[in-house]
């Protein structure tokens, strides 16, 4: 099957989307961006192919084997991936200990580290077995990182191995793991994953499906890269599109009646107008000053010592919004402290901050030509309910009734647009394939 790949290399997260010949989304991959852009793109792409093959598998055998079985297989697959990466991490950390930790300390450090890894592997098994509460991050760096920090605190100090030393070992080595090519594809681990779920009833049907999914020929006909880091992708110029264009087209694809798109990411905010075909007719980005971008909310969360995702819900508890005039990142902390010292409530201040962020976006929207129906909101901040509420309110006040679209997969908007561009380029016979290769499973 021919497929078309879009890769969105963002400043913090890299995304990939694969479309099939009919233009349907076949797979999506996501990873954190890293110093090696090429690799970040590769990891996201590999991930997208993994989900694509799981998608094919699901189509084939969902009826026969049931969804639960497939979920379990996917979980097993993730566990296998994690174990591989844990091995690499341990390899690097061991080497690091040998080369940097002073002689007498090496022994106790190694013992603690071995124990941490033993427990991390156990936790991974627990997660596979469904014995773990809550959700975990999709990124190896984050979910293993939080386990590492917890275990370091628990196991290090009692034997005089400092927490800071353990953390710095992790920080150094996780970068190495992230920046080396690893085998994380479908065929690398699917057999182990199958073995892991064991000989339960119905597994034969799955096994058959796996064979077919593995053999399915996915030919990457065309690839387009986009995103802030696009210039650093090892792609030819024809294979690159601006994130503005991709965003517009992606939003159009998700919500075909979209005319206006607002994207608030960590570093920048974009207001985009598109026509009925998803072609960008005008756009505006925030100027040099990053005030009012997602980053600003990040600072506030840090200052308040709470998680970014907790900000919105907290703000929504406000009954008396405080008026905030500046969303200058430089003064974020000072402003917050001053407000708190004046006795203002946290939630009221937060409500004001959210409104201030959205006000900045409103001016950008006005600059780009206003808010037309329908209006699609994307980017990290679109997941923040207080920001969404403020936006709805202000749009209604200033432009009247507008349908507001927010997709749960809005993070893939740019990559989706890029994939559509890839498909179009292939249709027009423009060689933007780069690979044109059959994607090994």
């Amino acid at each position, binding site marked *: 099957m021919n497929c078309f790949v879009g890769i969105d290399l963002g400043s913090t997260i890299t995304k990939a989307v694969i479309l099939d010949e009919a233009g349907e989304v076949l797979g999506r991959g996501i990873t954190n961006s890293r110093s090696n852009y090429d690799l970040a793109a590769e990891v996201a792409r590999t991930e997208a192919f993994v989900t694509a093959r799981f998608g094919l598998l699901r189509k084939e055998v969902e009826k026969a084997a049931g969804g639960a079985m497939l979920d379990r297989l996917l979980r097993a697959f993730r566990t296998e991936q994690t174990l591989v990466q844990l091995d690499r991490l341990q390899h690097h950390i061991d080497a690091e200990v040998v080369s940097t930790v002073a002689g007498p300390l090496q022994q106790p450090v190694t013992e603690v580290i071995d124990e941490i890894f033993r427990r991390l592997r156990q936790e991974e098994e627990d997660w596979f077995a469904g014995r773990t509460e809550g959700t975990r991050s999709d990124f190896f760096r984050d979910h293993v990182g939080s386990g590492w920090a917890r275990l370091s605190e628990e196991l290090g100090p009692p034997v005089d191995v400092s927490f800071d030393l353990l953390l710095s070992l992790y920080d150094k080595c996780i970068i190495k793991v992230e920046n080396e090519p690893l085998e994380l594809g479908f065929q690398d681990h699917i057999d182990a994953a199958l073995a892991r779920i064991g000989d339960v009833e119905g597994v034969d049907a799955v096994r058959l499906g796996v064979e077919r999914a593995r053999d399915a020929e996915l030919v990457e006909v065309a690839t387009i890269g986009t995103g802030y880091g696009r210039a650093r992708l090892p792609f030819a110029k024809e294979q690159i599109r601006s994130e503005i264009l991709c965003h517009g087209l992606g939003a159009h694809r998700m919500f075909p009646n979209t005319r206006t798109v607002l994207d608030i990411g960590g570093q920048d905010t974009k207001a985009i107008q598109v026509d009925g075909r998803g072609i960008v007719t005008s756009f505006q980005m925030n100027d040099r000053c990053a005030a009012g971008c997602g980053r600003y909310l990040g600072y506030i969360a840090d200052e308040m010592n709470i998680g970014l995702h907790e900000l919105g819900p907290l703000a929504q508890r406000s009954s008396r919004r405080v008026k905030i*005039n500046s969303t200058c990142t430089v*003064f974020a902390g000072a402003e917050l402290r001053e407000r708190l010292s004046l006795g203002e409530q946290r939630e009221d201040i937060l409500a004001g901050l959210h409104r201030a962020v959205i006000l*900045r976006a*409103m001016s950008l929207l*006005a600059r780009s030509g206003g808010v037309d129906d329908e209006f699609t909101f994307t980017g990290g901040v679109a997941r923040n309910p207080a920001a969404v509420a403020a936006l709805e309110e202000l749009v209604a006040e200033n432009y009247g009734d507008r349908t507001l679209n927010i997709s749960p997969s809005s993070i893939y908007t740019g990559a989706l647009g890029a994939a559509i561009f890839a498909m179009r380029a292939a249709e027009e016979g423009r060689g933007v394939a780069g690979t044109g290769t059959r994607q090994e499973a």
Partner: protein
Amino acid sequence: MTTERPRTRADIVDTARRLYEDLEFTAVREWLAADPDRKAVGCLPVYVPREVVWAAGVLPVGIHGGGDRLEIIRGDAYYQSYICHLPRSVVELGLSGRLDMLSGMLFPSTCDVIRNLSGMWQILRPEVYVRYVDVPQVEHPATGLEFWKGELSTIYRDMCAIAGTEPSDEALWAAIDDYDRVRDVIGRLYALRRDEPWKVPTEELYLVMRAGEVLPPPDFVDLATAYLEACHAEPLRRRDNTRVIVVGSFCEQPPLGLIKTIERAGCYIVGDDFLLGNRMITRPPERGGDPVEALAHALLFHHQPSSVMYEPDPDAKEVTIKKMVDAARADGVIFAAASFCDPALLDRPMLRAGAEAHGIPCIAFKFSENTGQFQQFREQAGTFSDSIKLWGGA
């Protein structure tokens, strides 16, 4: 607006505060509603010759942005982050319909921002009279004076056309009389604050001055006179404060919180250039002869030193601050300029050098009309005041 004269200090200040906080310009709307033939025209800072507006029967309304009370959406859409705040809020006021009652707008040649805003207004509000008021920069009787006379006549003619009135010397003289009274009462209030600052807190004085931006001159004179009387009648507690002048806030206005902060940090403001346009002319236009010439002459040859007018005397900048400090008997200078305000900030090094040459202590900071946090100002002004008290200087 109540018509009966408020009595107590609190009443008067309260009235003034309501006028200040009212971004809908209700007082202007009411004045207009009282007679369907009335017209009002907006005046941007710093100096607009209001006499020729008022002489035509048109109410000049000072437009000073939205302070910290206005949420900016449309205004920001037109300005990059490195331009001061004033034009954003003026555009916001205009686009939100709050200035719809005005039949015209006068944009004086304060700086390039206000100059360009005049053109924006021509596009945003094509139905409204817009004039760029090119205040003369040359104190030359044969050129500058002739030019300004011509400008005044044109504006007067245009204002009469708006109001449907006939131009006349009598009307001009009457308006000059009205504004002489305005300048007189302002002068007396400033003098009282200079002499007994504990009687005239600047926060209050400022609010009263702001009332003058939206009230007809006679009403303002009444209000200000009542306030002056109340200041004498109801003295406040005298404090051991440092005496400072505030320089650089002649266009974009500082938030009230900033003025309060300076005072609470232990400073009596005994001189300032807030709303400088209302006292730009320092001497009553000379009677007899041609009223237009008298007005032109007064501006050209008897105006306040200001960053927005060319200073022909090369030595003047150096002594400006010294003179201001002496006149106010101040201990020090606070340079408070709006962020990105070119006229104020380009002048500052010259003024500051002059102050330092005369051993006058000074500090400097930047604000914007919607600044919401005053901690840093409080600390700076407090330290400044303390150091002057302790050592009589920086």
